[in-house]
């Protein structure tokens, strides 16, 4: 990745002039800041990066970068990212989105992206709420959180996405916090460098519908000193985790998916089987 001939890149080189629709104080600003810092540090120009998303507040992020990207349909960022990366392994593909997009409507794609282990980074901005539709519970919402659609709380068991990721085969699993964009940028740089599917769960407070999440800055603490490479141990740590430890929890040893093959035959040759 070292390209000494390139001019040094600055985080602002990765920002667009489109003004975010996010509420003032939204955690997602921290992810945008971290992503642009990480991109500058990685040193690839914006045209070699693609930021891909689904639908939701956080999924608006691609337009705020100067990279290539796609803001597609709800829940389908990962299939798009996998198709793009498989067809263009030379491009750095980063999928982003929220907890509703990634864990609910896109939950199946999340599982299979972990299994498939295509070399990309997936950043989920988790605020335990649907913000764009104004305050409904998501798969990570606490069971007793009260809102219009669930006046007595959902009573549903919150999803533990990191445990799910470790069981399904993700090769890199980390948690970040938007209140610490520098720390998050370091996680993104490491995720890009690590082969295979890298998943970063980001605590990203929704100041509008979950104002109590402003207190997350007090709850967050340093996670494991060293990432684990054993899935069973990592799963045990993640299952007993309080949900606020930040850092890299798991680095797997799965290798990068195979690069694109070079063409070895011609159509004339392939079609010969049909000739009588």
């Amino acid at each position, binding site marked *: 990745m070292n390209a000494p001939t390139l001019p040094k890149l600055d985080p602002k080189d990765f920002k667009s002039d489109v003004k975010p629709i996010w509420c003032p104080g939204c955690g997602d600003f921290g992810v945008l800041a971290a992503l642009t810092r990480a991109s500058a540090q990685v040193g690839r120009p914006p*045209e070699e990066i693609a930021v891909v998303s689904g639908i939701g507040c956080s999924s608006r992020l691609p337009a705020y970068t100067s990279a290539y990207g796609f*803001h*597609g349909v709800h829940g389908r960022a990962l299939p798009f990212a996998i198709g793009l990366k498989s067809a263009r392994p030379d491009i750095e593909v980063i999928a982003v989105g929220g907890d509703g997009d990634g864990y609910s409507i896109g939950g199946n794609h999340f599982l299979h992206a972990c299994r498939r282990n295509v070399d990309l980074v997936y950043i989920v901005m988790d605020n335990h709420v649907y913000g764009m539709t104004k305050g409904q519970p998501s798969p990570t919402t606490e069971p007793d959180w009260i809102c219009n659609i669930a006046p007595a709380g959902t009573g549903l068991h919150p999803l533990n996405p990191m445990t799910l990721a470790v069981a399904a085969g993700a090769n890199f699993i980390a948690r970040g916090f938007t209140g610490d964009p520098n720390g998050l940028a370091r996680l993104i740089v490491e995720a890009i460098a690590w082969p295979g599917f890298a998943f970063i769960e980001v605590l990203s407070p929704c100041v509008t519908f979950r104002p109590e999440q402003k207190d997350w800055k007090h709850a967050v603490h340093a996670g494991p000193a060293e990432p684990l490479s054993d899935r069973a141990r990592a799963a045990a740590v993640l299952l007993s985790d309080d949900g606020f430890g930040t850092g890299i929890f798991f680095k797997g040893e799965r290798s990068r998916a195979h690069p694109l093959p070079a063409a070895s035959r011609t159509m004339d040759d392939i079609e010969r089987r049909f*000739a009588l």
Partner: protein
Amino acid sequence: MSRSTVAIALAGSGGAGVMTIGSMLLEAAARSGYYGLFSRLSGPQVRGGEAAALLRIGTVAVESQPDYYDALVAIDWGHVERFATEIPLQATSLIVGDPRMGEPPEAMLASGATLWKLPFSEQAATVRGGRPNMVALGVVSALLGLDPDELERVVVAKIGAKGEAIIEASRAALRAGRSLPLPDGGALALASPADPKPRWLISGNEAAAVGALRGGIRFVAGYPITPATEVVEWLAPVLPELGGTLLQAEDELAAVGMAVGASYGGVPAMTVTSGPGLSLMVETLGLAIAAEMPLVLIDVMRGGPSTGIPTKSEQSDLNLAIYGTHGDAPRLVLAPVSIADTLATTQWSVELAEALQVPAIVLSDQGMGQTRSVIDAPALHDSPDSRLRAGPLEPDSYRRYAITDSGISPMTAPGDAHGQWIGDGLTHNERGTPSSAAKDHHAQLAKRLRKLESHDFGARWAEVEGDGEVAVITWGSTVGPTREAIARLVASGHRLRHVAIRLLAPLQREALAAALRGVRRVIVVEVNQAGQLAQYLRATGAIPVPVESHARPGPLPLRPRELVETLSRWCSQ
């Protein structure tokens, strides 16, 4: 008297080997210079159950299932009666069965067909390791007058890997079958074929795959679904050999999403499915239309709605293909007019999707996709890259959705400097930035419609044949049987026009009106309940006279005789 076509059904329980001998028979006939079709019929069981190989062999290209089968040859009678409606027989037909395996079903004897009892199993027992299906193959090849040497060569080539003992047993069983006495007259002998031209033996599903590759497709994602799976399975080992990629997705939502992602990367991309999968893909179809992404989507139609009849054909996805998705979402919809044409139409679909930056849906069906056909070797070429790619760009100058006269704007792909854009399903402005302004919404909707409406599709939109004041309009798998019905009527002095529409959307209204100039009556022939094409043509007002509909649901294929009577009445009225 020798015949120009013969239709044979080979039936038996699963494991009796009727598919094996069916494919050997077609290949031997093909290598002897004949044309033909071979379709498989099986019960709903995943494995085993009743099975039938349906063959039609002729001296000229065969594009239709027959009116009746000339012979039904059964190794045993298992549950073959379940195929009574799919293997129509008449009084001149022959039923050939082994008396040891019981009596033929009443439903089949009721046709008045002649029963001819032959001891397949007894004859097979005279050969060490001999099997009744090979005896039956010997009988059928003798009935048709096929060259025994050609047949033996095919048999040896097909089972060669199983070893010398099995080859010898098969050969001996084949000869034992040929030595059985034929019924009087040898009524099924085929006329000699014309000097054979170079030909291919290929299924519609394989032809779609070849057409896609010739068109430039280098990324395919799919999810297993009958009857489309073979397209993806055929491509799986081939795409890497061409430097491409194939992924099996976790569902159809993902399959189409992966294809759009690859297309965004600048690589022509395709997904393949059947009706239930197309229903799921409609979401991303709308995205691809809004974001102007080239994409090819093949739908090998089956009986619907819902799970319907997975293994049998119907043309009932037309409405979904033309109208599916919310919002105003123009797209390309094409249908091959024959198995042979599946190659060229799929290739054209790739070219159009790339050139017009829009999804192209190719409507094939189970009958076309899973039938193997002997076709004239196609003229082949690789399509040029028809995507309008942006040249070198100045910083901050690129507008992905620039309003142009043609409606087409140059595209960049990741890696192109200063070409960054964000694809979006949100209404956007010329740069691609989300906008809910009325002027952007109107301008972008108009652009997307204009690029399809103003494109010159040339003469390939349809096959227009014949003249006369009565016109028949068909699409897809109804083209072949309709052609055959019309040929018979023309031979008996009638005049008919036939318009087989290849480009269903955007409908070429002016060209269609021109093709129908002077007609008195128009009838639309299709295999679905509602008459979906007829309704669409009525709605567009492109037809100068009232549109009449000859529509019925599947799963039975359209046969020429269904049309001959109706059309002949029309011609004389």
